[in-house]
């Protein structure tokens, strides 16, 4: 009986030791915490700390943007201080609505460490300033880098992270997030990128412009009629292959036209790409026996 008591005591001690040291999963990884601290009323409200990780409060969005701020901030100088007069691309510095600190036009947050609130979208900046680190606008871009910068920016300005903040910050977050979405959509697609580049140079294609040459229009007309009269998938596949080859050729041509600053040629090619895209859409929605209807 004494032996059984000893065994029972040992088992109890083992079980207590296990329950005292329970491993719990937290947001960023595995860490160990005492069960007492999790269940005890006084400490239950405090989220357990992760070993070797930042605390919960340090992970909040307004604290997290410190590394990004240095990346976005191009005008030099650290922390609070006098603002620089020179902005990027001829656009003026913007004043923080909270602490009146001068910030660079493309910055998302105030560079004043004590303030660090979200900023309004700068005036006179273009999409390249925010999503491609202020590089001069070009047709050839690193799409992977664009996507990385887009995701990183959205992580810090998304309105969901500002649900507990004031009304002004929430509004600004909505505006910034929406602007960044639009910027990403424009720069990602070659046609929209080309149209945007032309707009930046003041050579936008307006609705009333008649710049398409008759040959192009005839070619497009014939292709559209071909699609209309096609009855089998094989015919459509041939048309699609031809059209995709044309689009690839035009995209290469656009890269060289923008690269060598031949804007008139770039304008012609952008126009051509618009028509070819419409053909691609028609091919995409084609179904045997049904009329092709594209909505835009």
């Amino acid at each position, binding site marked *: 009986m004494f032996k059984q008591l000893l065994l029972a005591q040992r088992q109890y001690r083992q079980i207590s030791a296990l329950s005292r040291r329970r491993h719990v999963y937290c947001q960023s990884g595995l860490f160990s915490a005492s069960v007492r601290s999790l269940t005890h009323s006084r400490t239950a409200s405090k989220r357990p700390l992760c070993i070797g990780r930042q605390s919960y409060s340090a992970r909040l969005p307004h604290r997290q943007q410190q590394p990004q701020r240095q990346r976005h901030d191009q005008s030099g100088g650290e922390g609070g201080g006098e603002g620089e007069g020179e902005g990027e691309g001829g656009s003026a510095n913007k004043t923080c609505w909270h602490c009146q600190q001068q910030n660079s036009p493309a910055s998302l947050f105030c560079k004043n460490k004590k303030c660090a609130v979200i900023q309004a979208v700068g005036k006179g900046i273009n999409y390249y300033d925010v999503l491609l680190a202020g590089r001069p606008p070009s047709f050839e871009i690193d799409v992977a880098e664009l996507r990385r910068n887009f995701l990183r920016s959205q992580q810090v300005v998304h309105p969901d992270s500002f649900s507990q903040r004031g009304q002004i910050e929430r509004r600004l977050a909505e505006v910034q997030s929406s602007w960044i979405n639009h910027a990403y959509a424009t720069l990602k697609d070659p046609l929209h990128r080309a149209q945007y580049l032309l707009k930046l140079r003041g050579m936008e*294609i*307006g*609705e*009333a*412009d*008649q*710049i*398409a040459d*008759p040959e*192009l*229009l*005839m070619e*497009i*007309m014939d292709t*559209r*009629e071909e699609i209309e009269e096609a009855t089998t998938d094989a015919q459509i596949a041939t048309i699609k292959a031809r059209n995709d080859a044309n689009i690839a050729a035009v995209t290469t041509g656009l890269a060289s036209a923008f690269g060598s600053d031949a804007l008139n040629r770039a304008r012609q090619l952008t*126009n051509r790409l*618009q*028509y070819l*895209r*419409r053909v691609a859409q*028609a091919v995409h929605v084609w179904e045997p026996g049904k009329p092709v209807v*594209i*909505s*835009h």
Partner: protein
Amino acid sequence: MFSIVKQLAPRRLPSATFTKPVAAFVQSRFYHEKVIDHYENPRNMGSLDKHDPTVGTGLVGAPACGDVMRLQIKVDDNGEIVDVKFKTFGCGSAIASSSYITERVRGMNIDDALKIKNTDIAKELCLPPVKLHCSMLAEDAIKSAIKDFRMKRDGALRTA
């Protein structure tokens, strides 16, 4: 009488009975009864022989949306348009604009046809501002067709 009034009224979607700001967005998606009529029953769709010396072919495109429109007119010696055919690849408003303009110019003199303005077409079809470029496309198409006919005729006169 009531049926005529009903025909002229914009076709409403079933949910457009409330007056919230959403209704404004819903309204902008309306196609006028006339546009729908032209779209479903297009007049004069088809083609004429482009090698015919009395036929002028106008081929225009809208750079903003990538639509293409072809308008062909057959003109007699008096300068009167005796036959007209169109073919449009584009949105409902573009198809309606070209269909309407073929109806309008049939029997007209080419000098009078040149005077048609896109605002007339837009007013007749009740096109919303965002679709005004479709009416402009139709106006350009008829002008291009007449220009092509004149070039052909002048070319024929020079070689004759």
